[in-house]
């Protein structure tokens, strides 16, 4: 039995190593590079880069916009577009809504996970209020981020 565990551990080691330190970088859309086609978006957009992922071909990324409108929680889709640079994406809101909003980003690289709660302001993403996580964000964390954004508006 010990031998089986050892073999399994050895088999899983490369996958774990390939994603050790896997995380996300969040930046302005211009970080995606020059020469990107300008796409008209109704809402804010930002760039995401998958860091420390050696298996980018199998990496996945998803996201949703989460909002608080008149004290009621809302969700909306976002557009995630791969750029010419491997592991770099531009995320854009597809609707312009009242209230306060964050974008909940989730990514996987092999078995490793990473996430981010990207705060959105009137001029785009808010770097100071954005949180990068070593896992997917929880509902409580998203609610808390929305409430923190709502406070200055009052």
């Amino acid at each position, binding site marked *: 039995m010990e031998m089986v565990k050892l073999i399994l551990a050895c088999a899983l080691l490369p996958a774990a190593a390939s994603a050790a330190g896997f995380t996300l*970088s969040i*930046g*302005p*859309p*211009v*970080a995606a*590079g*020059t*020469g*990107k*086609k*300008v*796409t*008209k978006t109704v809402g804010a957009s930002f*760039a995401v*880069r998958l860091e420390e992922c050696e298996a980018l071909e199998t990496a996945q990324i998803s996201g949703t916009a989460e909002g608080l409108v008149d004290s009621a929680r809302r969700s909306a889709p976002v557009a995630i577009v791969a750029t010419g640079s491997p592991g770099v994406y531009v995320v854009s809101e597809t609707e312009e809504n009242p209230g306060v909003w964050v974008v909940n980003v989730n990514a996987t690289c092999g078995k490793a996970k990473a996430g981010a709660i990207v705060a959105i302001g009137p001029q785009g993403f808010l770097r100071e209020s954005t949180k990068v996580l070593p896992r997917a964000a929880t509902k409580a964390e998203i609610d808390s981020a929305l409430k923190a954004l709502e406070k200055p508006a009052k």
Partner: protein
Amino acid sequence: MKEPAPNNQLRDLPLVKAPDAIWESIEAAMDASLDAGPKPKWTWRPVWAWGIAAVVLAAVGAGAWLITRPPRAAWAVDRIDGKITEHGKIEVGDWLQTDASSRARITLSDAGAGDIGTIEIAPNTRVRMVASRPGEQRLRLARGEISARVSAPPRLFFVDTPASTAVDLGCAYTMKADQDGNGLLSVTLGWVSLEWAGREALVPAGANCRTRPMIGPGTPYFDDASQALKDALGSFDFDGGGTSAADAVLAEARVRDTLTLWHLLSRVEGTDRQRVYNRIVDLVPLPKGVSPDKALQLDRETLKLWREELAWKW
């Protein structure tokens, strides 16, 4: 008795003038011969025929060219407010001018890329369509203000101003030029490259760059940079502020102002360059793959990689 030779006899004959009637009969005979004989090779009639044929051929050729030639490149022009000098379209070489109360919109089109964007012409603006060919759409802004939103492959749309050329890299921006040729670029989306005589400024969304005739583009800065940084930059770029102005820029710089410092690096020398480098590294640690020595030597690839990494902090 020997008979005289016939030649001698002929010599001895008296000379007698021929009667006029003989000459008349000879001329009549020659005329008759000319009328009846073969025509000479070159006369005025074949020359005419060749001329007419050439004219007909030229006319047919010109007609065919007119029918089959590609339509002359033009941009659509729409009036937004007031009165404008051109309406409907402008072609290469045409000027478009607005007065104090008029605005217009140009729809850019490229034979290869189709519709590639729009340019809004503000009041008191004078622009000219300079070139429109596949791979190059070029406008001249003589004075005034334009707002461009371009969705085209990079380096396809150009705006020439008295002090620089704005090269679209996938962007939306406003460009102003005053009567003296001084300009201001403000980018709202994507990137614009400002170029003049080998001097270049890469300006991302949220940033501005001033231009001056015979100097070219200054150093880009973000909208939200401190006024002290903007003033010091103006002094450094256009008023010979030198080291003291550069020091003021370094003192005012935030993480986001590494955009400004990255440009400044290649515009100073010696110990000034080392100090600019040190300030950038203080604000944002040197990323993997960027060699300090190569950065200080202004190695093109190293600087590009460094800028791409710094952009994540802007």
